[in-house]
C-alpha cells in the first residue's frame, strides 16, 4: 500500500492505496465518493469523468498512485455551500436526467467545456461531450441544458440543494 496525498474537492486528503487500484476504485471504495460512476472501464463511456490537475480524465484509466500530489474534483465538488451549480440546476430544469447514471460524468465534462469555452457552439458542445454516453438518449436535453448556462439563462441564481419535500413525489399506490 502507498500513502498518497490529494486535494480532493478543495480539501487536503491522504489515503492509503494499492498500486493496482484506479483513481475510480479509490474514490468510490475508499473515499465514499460514489457520485463518480463505474461503467465501461475502457475509457469510452465517460461515466467516471473527474477533473485531475485542471483537465478532465476517465478515472477508470488513471491509477490512484498517479494522482499523488494532484488536485481532484468530482461531481460532489460542483455544488457549493449546499447550492447546486448553475449547470446542475440547468440539467434539472431541462429534464436532462432520466436514469441519471451518466449524469455525474456529463456534468464534469460540461463543466470543463464551459470553463474552456464559455460560449460554445452546438458543435463544440457535441464534441466536448463526445466522450460521455447516455443510454437513455437524453442528448438533446443535455445539450440544451449546457446551452442555457452558456447563454446565461440559468447562471443568475443557483438554487439551493432541493429538499426532499420539493421533489416530485411518486404516486401513492391505492
Amino acid at each position: 500500500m502507498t500513502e498518497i496525498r490529494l486535494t480532493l474537492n478543495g480539501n487536503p486528503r491522504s489515503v492509503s492505496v494499492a498500486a493496482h487500484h484506479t483513481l475510480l476504485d479509490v474514490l468510490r471504495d475508499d473515499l465514499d465518493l460514489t457520485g463518480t460512476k463505474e461503467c465501461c472501464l475502457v475509457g469510452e463511456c465517460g461515466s467516471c469523468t473527474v477533473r485531475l490537475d485542471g483537465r478532465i480524465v476517465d478515472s477508470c484509466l488513471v491509477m490512484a498512485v498517479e494522482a499523488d500530489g494532484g488536485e481532484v474534483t468530482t461531481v460532489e465538488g460542483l455544488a457549493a455551500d449546499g447550492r447546486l451549480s448553475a449547470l446542475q440546476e440547468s440539467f434539472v430544469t431541462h429534464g436532462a436526467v432520466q436514469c441519471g447514471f451518466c449524469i455525474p460524468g456529463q456534468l464534469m465534462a460540461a463543466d470543463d467545456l464551459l470553463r474552456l469555452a464559455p460560449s460554445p457552439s452546438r458543435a463544440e458542445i457535441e464534441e466536448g461531450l463526445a466522450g460521455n454516453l447516455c443510454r437513455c438518449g437524453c442528448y438533446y436535453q443535455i445539450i440544451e441544458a449546457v446551452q442555457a448556462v452558456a447563454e446565461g439563462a440559468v447562471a443568475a441564481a443557483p438554487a439551493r440543494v432541493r429538499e426532499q419535500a420539493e421533489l416530485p413525489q411518486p404516486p401513492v399506490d391505492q
Partner: protein
Amino acid sequence: MRPFDYARPADLDAAIDLLARHGSDARVLAGGTDLIIRLRDGTYAPSLVVDVKRIPEMAPRIERVDSVVEVGAGTTMTDIVESALMQRLFPALVEAARFVGSVQIRNRATLVGNQCNASPAADTAPPLLVYGAVLEIFGPAGRREVALDDFFIQSGVTALAEGELVTAIRLPIPSERTGSAFQRRTRRRGHDLASVTLAVALDERGGTRLAYGSLGPRPVLFTDETGDLPLETWLLAARPSSTSMRAGPDYRLAMLRVLATRALDTARDRLAAA
C-alpha cells in the same frame, strides 16, 4: 486487475535501470489510456509498472530547437491540439490528434505513447511519418535516434530494445513551402478506431509524402521526389485485414482511394496558399 508493483523513478537513469533489470516483466506507464485497459483485461500481466511522467527529460513540452520541433514524451494529444506552433508547422498532426478518442482521452493519451503502442490504426502515425519524425531513445547503451519509419515493425512491435525508452519526438521544420492534410474514416464520427487513416505532405519542389494506417500490420510511408506521382502503386500496396470487425477489405480499399484524393486536394490547396 492483477496486483503489480509501481515505481515512479525521478530520473532517466533510474527508469532505464528498472526497465533493464525487469525486462519484459515491466511495463511503461505514460498516459495509460491503452496500458490500463490491457492491465485490466489481462493482456499484460507485468510484475512492475514504471510511471515515467515525473522524469524531467520526459516532461510535456513542445519546443523549437534550431531547425527541429521537439515533443517531450509526456506531451498529450490536448497539448498538441492547443499548440500554436504545431498548428502552424504541422497541421495534419494537429488534425489527427484532435480525432483521438474524446476530450478525456486526449487529456491523458501521449503522442509518444501512441507510437510506442504501435497500433496499425494509430491516428497520429501517418502525419508523423509524412513529416519525417525521428524518435529520441535512451537505454542502457546510451542515446540513439530512430526514424519513425524504422521504428514500426508490426502491430504492437517496435524497434525498442529491452531497457529502452522513447523520450521525445523530433520533427524537422520544413525548409520550403509545404501543404499537408490528414484524412480518416471511422464507423462513427467520434471516439472510434480508424478503418483508414491517411496523411499527405507536399513541398514546393514537387515532392510528395503519403502515409496510411489501418491497412496492414503497420502504418506505411511512400515518398516521391519526381513529381510523377505513382499513386496507383502506393494504393495497391495496402493489405487490409480480412477479419477486422471495423470494416471489410473492399470497403477499406475503396475508402483509401477516396481519402487519398481528398487529402491530396487539400494539401495542394494549402501548398498554393502557403
